[in-house]
């Protein structure tokens, strides 16, 4: 496993910082411009969720190097209120913020793999991978 780079999400500007770093990492790994935009947008949504619902958290990036493919793992972690009903937040159109985020279904579509672990009262961790095609 490769070393991680992380961005703390504490203020609104950190959303931009996180997506710029993610885009840079994606470029280094060899993603094309469309996938760079997908990854950066997914990070933007994840970072905004942290900022809106948990207040603070972090987004980490890890380069994936399998035998036959390369990819980028994005890990979004927070110690916020957590999500009680994960199947509900994964429904298209579900929102608690009045449409401020396209939500997690959008992030899932932008990435190739998507996992969410949430402990109500403790926090949420989302792991999403995009593979280089």
């Amino acid at each position, binding site marked *: 496993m490769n070393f991680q780079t992380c961005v703390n999400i504490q203020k*609104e*500007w950190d*959303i*931009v910082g996180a*997506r*710029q770093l993610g*885009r840079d990492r994606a470029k280094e790994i060899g993603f094309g*411009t*469309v996938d*760079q*935009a*997908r990854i*950066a*947008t997914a990070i*933007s*949504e994840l970072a*905004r969720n942290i900022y809106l619902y948990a207040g603070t958290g972090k987004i980490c990036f890890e380069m994936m190097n399998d035998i036959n493919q390369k990819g980028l793992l994005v890990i979004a972690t927070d110690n916020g209120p957590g999500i009680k009903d994960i199947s509900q937040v994964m429904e*298209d159109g579900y929102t608690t913020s009045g*449409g*401020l*985020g*396209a*939500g997690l*279904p*959008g992030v899932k*579509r*932008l990435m190739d793999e998507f996992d969410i672990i949430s402990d109500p009262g403790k926090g949420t961790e989302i792991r999403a991978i995009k593979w280089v095609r």
Partner: protein
Amino acid sequence: MRIPILKLHNYLLITIQIDLDDQTAIQFQEDLLSKIHKSGATGVVIDLTSVEIIDSFIAKVLGDVVAMSDLMGAKVVLTGIQPAVAMTLIDLGIHLQDVPTALDLEQGLIKLRQELEE
């Protein structure tokens, strides 16, 4: 950070050349509406050629500013949305259906002229 708004006859032209953060986007929304109010502009082109990312929040701000300007009597056209941005928006589930768009600034001005029937 403020986004410059240029006046050309009855139109306002804006080209967004920075990575938009939430605060700048909201500030732009306010600036554009007050500029429409002050200048009496009837048409607005917002050029997005240099914008590499539109996430759900920025999309909402842009969609809203089109609707708000419409309420004030000014037509807005968004131009120059990049292929990667268009693909990402659809993946996100954002269709911006009621928002007039055009390929580039030139087409945007033609579209405005048609809409305003000048």
